[in-house]
């Protein structure tokens, strides 16, 4: 149970970090993926 709770907290913080950094803005994400030469997934 503690393992699952830890994974949940880690995921929550990770997602919040992405949001705070603006890395959930579609334009920024697309630019980042293009910058890494991954391309925008379809």
């Amino acid at each position, binding site marked *: 149970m503690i393992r699952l709770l830890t994974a949940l907290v880690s995921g929550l913080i990770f997602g919040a970090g992405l949001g705070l950094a*603006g890395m959930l803005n579609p334009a920024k994400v697309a630019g980042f993926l293009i910058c890494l030469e991954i391309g925008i997934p379809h």
Partner: protein
Amino acid sequence: MVINWADFTPFASFGGGALIGLAALILMLAKGRVMGVSGILAGLLSRPSGVDWSWRLVFVIGTLLGPLLLVALRGGTEIEAVQIAEGGQLWLAAFFGRARHSDRLWLHLRARDLRLGALSLRSLAAVMTFVGTGVATVFVTLHLLG
């Protein structure tokens, strides 16, 4: 060089990076492994049973809920929530693409190089080399060739 000041948000970016680092550190301390989202998704897709599968699922659920929690705490608008969902879709598609093609080198810095949380000197050297090469490339491109 033109800087897009409207999208230049160093403090928010620093805070977000710090939170991502904290999440990675928590996972490393709890499970002794580096937080690689594409690897976590790959495990979720390939092993649909057992304890190893459940924590991966919970992590992904947390990752999806985290941004929405942030919007709720900040009092964000519905438009912001929709934008976040669209951005999340892009990330998920990219990570799933990576998870399905795990032989492709997705990022130049591989997961095993990112063990700064474990105070690995090898990781520090790898990161410094990566960042230094990037700085040198930008300098040469903008000031020597441009």
